[in-house]
């Protein structure tokens, strides 16, 4: 029998990593909802965000608080530019009888190779690095659970980003316009919303959220140009949440983080790596709309 305090500890660290998965999943879902694209470059945006943070911190000497803005601003521009320059063009050249999804997805795969490739070009990235911890200090004890101050900071920042996104989408007029665009682009265009700009903004916003996740991961994971594979966990998280619901994928991320840690505790450590695939297949087979999604509604004709 596994010690109960170990279970608590595993759950707590699962929540911490789950928050980061949730951020990446948010980014994927924002892109999917607004542009119908599965972003296979999502993981590479996280990676580039992390590296940009490192450049800001170690070379430009920016304080930790500012590198979030620095990295988010640059990845916002990157995401927006990709939508504007590439996806816009792909969309405009749709071929009848051929799913546009395929072309869009391959374009994002191209982006992921291009990003990995451009990071690898710097000899600097041959060494595996990691960022210094966000906060140092005495670990905090809650009952028998030990938490590093850094873990609390990760949860805090992730929650802050989520709240900011919620406030933006729910309370601002731009946020409402963005939501309208993702629900029905044609109607949105009719009432005068600049749909193209909105799509671009969504790509930028999603990339910025990923960049924040990248900086949060950077002190915990080893940084390599290949760290983008983490995106599979975010896909699983998003699917748990139904792939179309923002609150759903936050819950999905946390659930997945906890499942992963408990699987590692009760089964074998290799179960950690296969958990996301099993979760994706099980959920899509049994409940394609996700655990929290409502009825599946056919979109468009």
């Amino acid at each position, binding site marked *: 029998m596994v010690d109960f305090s170990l279970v608590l500890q595993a759950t707590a660290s699962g929540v911490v990593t789950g928050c980061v998965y949730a951020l990446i999943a948010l980014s994927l879902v924002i892109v999917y909802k607004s542009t119908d694209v599965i972003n296979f470059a999502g993981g590479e945006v996280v990676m580039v965000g992390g590296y940009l943070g490192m450049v800001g911190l170690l070379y430009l000497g920016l304080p930790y608080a500012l590198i979030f803005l620095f990295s988010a601003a640059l990845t916002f521009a990157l995401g927006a530019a990709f939508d504007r320059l590439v996806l816009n063009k792909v969309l405009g050249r749709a*071929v009848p009888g051929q799913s546009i999804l395929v072309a869009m997805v391959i374009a994002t795969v191209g982006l992921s*190779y291009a990003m990995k490739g451009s990071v690898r070009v710097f000899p600097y990235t041959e060494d595996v690095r990691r960022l210094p911890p966000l906060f140092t200090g005495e670990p905090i004890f809650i009952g028998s659970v030990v938490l590093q101050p850094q873990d609390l900071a990760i949860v805090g920042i992730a929650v802050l980003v989520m709240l900011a996104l919620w406030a933006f989408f729910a309370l601002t007029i731009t946020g409402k316009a963005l939501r309208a665009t993702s629900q029905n682009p044609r109607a949105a265009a009719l009432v005068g919303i600049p749909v193209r700009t909105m799509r671009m903004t969504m790509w930028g916003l999603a990339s910025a959220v990923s960049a924040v996740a990248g900086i949060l991961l950077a002190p915990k994971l080893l940084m390599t140009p290949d760290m983008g594979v983490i995106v599979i966990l975010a896909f699983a998280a998003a699917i748990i949440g139904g792939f179309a619901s923002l609150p759903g994928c936050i819950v999905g991320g946390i659930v997945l983080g906890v499942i992963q840690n408990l699987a590692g505790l009760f089964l074998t450590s290799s179960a950690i790596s296969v958990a996301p695939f099993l979760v*994706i297949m099980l959920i*899509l087979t049994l409940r394609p709309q996700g655990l929290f999604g409502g009825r599946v509604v056919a979109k468009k004709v």
Partner: protein
Amino acid sequence: MYGSPSWQRLAPLLILLALGAVLPPLLPQYFLYLGNVLMMYAVLALGLDLLLGWAGQFAFAHIAFFGVGAYATVLLQTRLGIPFAAAMPLAAILAALIGMLIALPATRLRAVYLALATFAFAEGAQWVFNAWDRVTGGADGLRIPAPNLFGYPLGTDPRAFPVMAVVLALVIAGTLYLTSSKFGRSLCAIRDSEHAAAASGIDVRKTKVIVFAISAAYAGIAGGMFTMYQSFVNPETFGFAQIVLVLSMIVVGGLGTLPGTLIGVVLLGLLPEVMRTAMRSLLVWQELVYGVILILAMMYMPRGLWGTFFRRRVRP
């Protein structure tokens, strides 16, 4: 009109067979190796094109069936002592059966979910190849004994080359028959509109399951071809990068067109080799160049090379 393909469309296969017989003594081994690689990719790509280009099903599971084919062909010989000539078809049938099992739940899913579910299946399969080390040899891989085809030993590039050419010719002929049959028309109907297809009396679910199985069988055959000229197999061979490569081949060449698929296979199959020789000192740029090529191809050639230059619509 549908029926059998005309002999004009089958005739070029004779050239392929003749090349398979004539080239091995004439070409250096490296070129024969490239030829083998391309012929294997051609079978993989033709299978994926049936699923994606003809039936419009966006699935990533193809590479897993390739792995099943390769591992099963080897294991049936080494563990059960089944001769190669039987092991390879059996492995293809096994891949088709697994494909069918996957298709039963997967065909209920809409585009995006199908892509994600099959992506997860492919990654899961690669995990199995890694973790089931008592059978697959795990990450260390498995040595492939030289297959013996009715007393004719394969296992080297020159010896495998003619047999690979025969297999590819058979697969192409099969593809021509399939796509010019009523079944091929049903696939296009499903791709263009499932509702319209169902309304005109096509059993959409059944057709999708069958095309999944056929496509998986192609991948299984390609797995068997892999064991003809390679001496070693490990899970790395069946990763995400491979499925992206095959996918790019058919999309860059032209979805749903046989010549397009073959052009894509040759171009993208040779690209790494060309880059290796042309960019010797700049090898690190390879990934970036590949990514940019994919992006540009999607932007400027949505119909693929074949469709762009021959202005032929994807066949109705």
